[in-house]
């Protein structure tokens, strides 16, 4: 039993003072506060499922973003890439390609995009912020161009069933499985270690012979691949290819990772934390609707909770560490 706990700890957090405790606490508090006021609608199993579904896209992107942020990078192209993925799928479906092949192609595109971004960052040593800012613009433009600046309407041919607020829909399960996989990669593989090392001190990693450029390429490729998966989920909800979809998604995703304990200066972050961060934001958003909050109040409250969640973590830090 105890071994299990230790294992779980090792898997979900880095070291003794798991950074995901603060977002977990925040999540529980916020959840209970909302549930206490509108238990009859908020606690409905259907609503819980809906919230899970609503989290899938951000959470899937956050898996990859966690890797990116742990290496000390950032990825601003997430939203554009999701949009591009939906467009690619829609375009292919419309052209008569089979759903499976369309999905595969979309994933191939996103993986390729990620590898290219990674090459700019890992080999040409350009700053991730700039490269992905450029990519954000290029991919958005590409999506619009490919879609002829319109939404692409097509028969989703079953793909619309991928993600639904339903335990029988594969979407939520896929996301969960990927989360466990990525967490394992980060914790139990040499590659995962090197990801942390690159973010913690790149010079040190290089000194012991790690090809840090390659690590980065792999990270961005993997991350974009995961964004591609999120794009498939997004298509499944939209059932159209929408080149203007998901503008600003990256901010939500980065926020999830940072609320979950990730640090933009690298070396810190965990999958569990990022998932909790993503969930926290869905719960706030959804809860606000259930409470019938006016939308401006909702925004004010969201902002305050985000800061509080992290201040909580900071307060704990203070007590345990040096300065």
């Amino acid at each position, binding site marked *: 039993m105890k071994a299990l706990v230790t294992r779980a700890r090792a898997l979900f957090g880095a070291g003794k003072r798991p950074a995901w405790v603060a977002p977990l606490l925040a999540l529980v508090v916020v959840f209970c506060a909302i549930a206490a006021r509108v238990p009859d609608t908020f606690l409905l199993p259907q609503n819980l499922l809906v919230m899970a579904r609503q989290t899938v896209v951000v959470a899937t992107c956050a898996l990859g973003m966690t890797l990116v942020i742990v290496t000390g990078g950032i990825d601003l192209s997430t939203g554009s890439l999701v949009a591009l993925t939906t467009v690619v799928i829609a375009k292919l479906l419309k052209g008569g390609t089979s759903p499976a092949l369309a999905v595969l192609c979309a994933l191939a595109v996103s993986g390729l995009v990620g590898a290219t971004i990674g090459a700019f960052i890992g080999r040409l040593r350009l700053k991730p912020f700039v490269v992905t800012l450029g990519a954000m613009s290029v991919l958005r433009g590409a999506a619009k161009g490919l879609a002829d600046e319109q939404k692409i309407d097509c028969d989703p041919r079953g793909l619309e069933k991928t993600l639904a607020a339903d335990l029988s829909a594969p979407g939520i399960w896929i996301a969960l499985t990927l989360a466990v996989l990525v967490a394992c990669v980060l914790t139990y593989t040499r590659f995962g270690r090197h990801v942390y090392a690159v973010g913690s001190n790149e010079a040190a990693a290089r000194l012991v012979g790690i090809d840090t450029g390659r690590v980065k390429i792999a990270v961005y490729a993997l991350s974009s691949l995961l964004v591609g998966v999120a794009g498939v989920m997004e298509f499944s909800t939209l059932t159209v290819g*929408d080149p*203007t979809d998901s*503008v600003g998604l990256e901010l939500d995703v980065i926020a999830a990772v940072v609320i979950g304990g990730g640090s933009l200066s690298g070396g810190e972050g965990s999958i569990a934390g990022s998932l909790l961060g993503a969930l926290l934001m869905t719960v706030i958003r959804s809860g606000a609707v259930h409470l019938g909050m006016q939308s401006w109040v909702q925004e004010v409250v969201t902002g305050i909770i985000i800061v509080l969640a992290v201040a909580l973590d900071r307060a704990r830090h203070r007590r345990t560490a040096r300065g």
Partner: protein
Amino acid sequence: SKDSKPSDAADGGKSPSARLKIAVIPKGTTHEFWKSVHAGAVKAAREADVDIVWKGPLKEDDLKAQVDVVSSFVAQGVNGIVLAPLNDAALRAPVKAAKAAKIPVVVVDSDLQGDDHVSFVATDNQAAGKIAATELARLLAEKGSAVVLRYQEGSASTQNREKGFLDGIKSAPDVKVLSDNQYGGATTETAFAKGESLLLAQKAQTGSSFGVFTPNESTTFGMLLALRKSNLNKKVKFVGFDASEKLVSALKDGDVDGLVVQNPFNMGYLAVKTMADHLRGKPVEKRIDTGARLVTKANLDDPGVREVVAPDLGKWLEE
């Protein structure tokens, strides 16, 4: 742009002998709605033998970008501007500047304050909202509950529709509006997520007589997806706004009960035509109502309706 024939740069756009060049500036480019406006504009351009440049703000609903696009065209010196202002006050200044530079402006789709523009070609949005209210009340047999999923804070055309709807629904006192303070936001995805939560929060699944109104294409489509994914389609009465391929087929399926549609093709057509007329010195009307009508499964096959909901755009937009 593919619409403007490569004009001879040497003689510029300004010399009177050159072809007339008209900038057409939509609010955005990706709603199906604007595609129709575009097609109408192209038709008018061909008939009147002028060039048009179609250019929207880069970011959807980006007010400042639109202001910049207008001022860039003014600086460039086009002959006329057809504009769908994102804001009825904020675009006053650039339009005034255009007027000062002797570039006339025709306003389309959404109103603009002041009288610096030549003509206003659009739907009466409040009246259109009322049409939706009347229909939803009828569908609910004048009794039950309703929710409105608004579009975005500060968007004048949709706010007028929402207002028209809320005013109109008052004439059915037994229809209670449960929620009218939630906004769907700019994209389908955000509208979908909001819609999903809204339906659950207002217990749409338990009520027997429940209606929904949405004021534009993206909120309508998002709400449609939300209804379908929660298996509430056909159970909840749903009146939306604007038409697209997906929405029309949903109307056929009975997932949507009614759509209030404008006549965007006509809007684009009349706007450019009016501008061309004005530039050639013909008198034009100050206000041109392009009309709105309710489309239901029943009247879907009327030729008049077909022309509006499924215009043959390809003829105009593809070479």
